[in-house]
């Protein structure tokens, strides 16, 4: 379009600098902080002595919370995929002129604050709620059994809160599916489910990959659900640990090591997953 080579760089510069200073540099800072001598404090200052032991301490003490975060996030991601797929499919391929309205309705619940929606679940799943009484009456839940403050409640909250991140990428890739392909599968005597499995599902894989990543990543680092819907034990996630280590205990080196491990673990998981799923068109 132009031979003024500097124009795109000029347009990119302000935003790119912002990200370089306030996203990339902090990552290096985090890495450096994780190697400080842990005997220092915010008031007295920290000494940089390449203390790799912070990682050993952090992991040996908090590996259960790490493991739990990834398990909770993985279950929530699979559940969200199962829940969001029919919705995305219905909107993309079955809704006709209602498509735009339905899309607005998918996003609309998330205009209400994340925290307030999570607190609303505490009201729905609370020990005295009619929902819990109902489950007790039909003996799905034992007498006096609880939902709130259990791992189940936390996973449920995670599943719910990140649903749009699953639904929208699925919708985008399902919308590109030519309905005539589904008809063609039917014409060639495939059963509806076989047609779905062999034609639609493979075509929607980019959406599945993007959606699972966009759900798994924030879910594994989240601590709002664990804090509000979880109990004292068996529900603490790594986010809770990092938050408390930074903001309550002021144990910066350990906290930074934990944060850095979380980031590294996610990068490795995501890279492996994207490679195996064979899609690179995420951006």
């Amino acid at each position, binding site marked *: *379009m*132009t031979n003024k080579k500097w124009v795109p760089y000029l347009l990119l510069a302000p935003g790119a600098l912002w990200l370089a200073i306030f996203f990339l540099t*902090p990552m290096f800072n985090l890495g450096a902080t994780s190697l400080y001598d842990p005997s220092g404090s915010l008031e007295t200052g920290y000494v940089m002595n390449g203390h790799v032991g912070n990682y050993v301490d952090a992991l040996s003490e908090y590996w259960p919370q790490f493991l739990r975060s990834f398990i909770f996030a993985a279950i929530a991601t699979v559940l969200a995929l199962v829940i969001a797929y029919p919705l995305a499919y*219905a909107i993309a391929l*079955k809704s006709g002129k209602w498509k735009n309205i339905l899309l607005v309705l998918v996003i609309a619940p998330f*205009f209400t604050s*994340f925290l307030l929606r999570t607190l609303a679940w505490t009201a729905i799943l609370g020990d005295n709620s009619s929902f819990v009484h109902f489950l007790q009456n039909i003996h799905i839940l034992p007498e006096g059994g609880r939902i709130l403050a259990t791992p189940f409640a936390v996973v449920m909250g995670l599943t719910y809160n990140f649903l749009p991140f699953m639904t929208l990428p699925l919708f985008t890739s399902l919308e590109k599916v030519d309905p005539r392909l589904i008809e063609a599968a039917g014409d060639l005597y495939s059963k509806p489910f076989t047609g779905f499995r062999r034609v639609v599902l493979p075509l929607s894989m980019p959406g599945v990959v993007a959606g699972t990543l966009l759900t798994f990543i924030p879910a594994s680092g989240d601590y709002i659900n664990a804090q509000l819907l979880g109990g004292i034990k068996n529900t603490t996630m790594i986010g809770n640990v990092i*938050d408390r280590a930074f903001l309550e205990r002021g144990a910066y080196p350990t906290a930074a090591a934990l944060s*850095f491990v979380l980031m590294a673990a996610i990068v490795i998981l995501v890279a492996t997953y994207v490679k195996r799923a064979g899609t690179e068109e995420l951006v």
Partner: protein
Amino acid sequence: MNWIRKNIIMIVGMLVLFYMFIPVFVVIALSFNEPKSRLTYTFDKFTLDNWLHPCSGAEAMCPSVMVSLKIGLLSTIGATILGTLMAYALMRYRFRGKGVANLLLFLPMASPEVVMGSSLLTLFVSASFPLGFWTILIAHIMFCLSFVVVTVKARLAGMDPRLEQAAMDLYANEWQTFRRITLPLLAPGIASAALLSFSLSFDDFIVTNFNSGSTVTFPMFVWGSAQRGIPPQVNVIGAGVFLIALAIVVIGQIVGARKRKALAA
């Protein structure tokens, strides 16, 4: 029976949609609640008082809403301008380093909020930069930026580049083309990017919690009160924001549909 079988996907889809709205209904219901005590979060008695006097009885709440509105507006302006420029450069120019720029934009979306928030905290602490309003604003512009770029890029991708070429053929220079052709066509994309930025900023808790110092935003107020007892007025704010955002989106859809119709006629 046959009808159910034929429409099973639509029925399941609508049930999922209903499920997504359950907490919203609860928030709206609780905004009309007069709780028996400060610590209960169940519906006790209907009242209009929360809506009529949202600020009384929860004295710290309204200032926190003001802080969130200010940060939301400023970070929306910042992120929308920076992001639109970036999206335009990435979609309309060929240059070296595009891959790096795309990666730089993708990474914040692929990082958990705890990591972004805590790493930014270590930067501010080691630079002895005081935490508060400005650090929250800096953080919000940072994480909104990528979402703006993605949204505006999508709109640019759907635009016919021949319209811009035609303007150039008619001797408009680059700035005139951008100002008179690209920008008006891009407006709906910029508007949805701005709306997205604002809701991301207004709603953010985790990154803010790390970088707020003693500044209290609305989500921080809610978080704090979750430990001490939640005033029903917070649900008025929640329900109010929901209704306003919904109205903006619906009006946007109607205006868009009218424009398309006018163009088609």
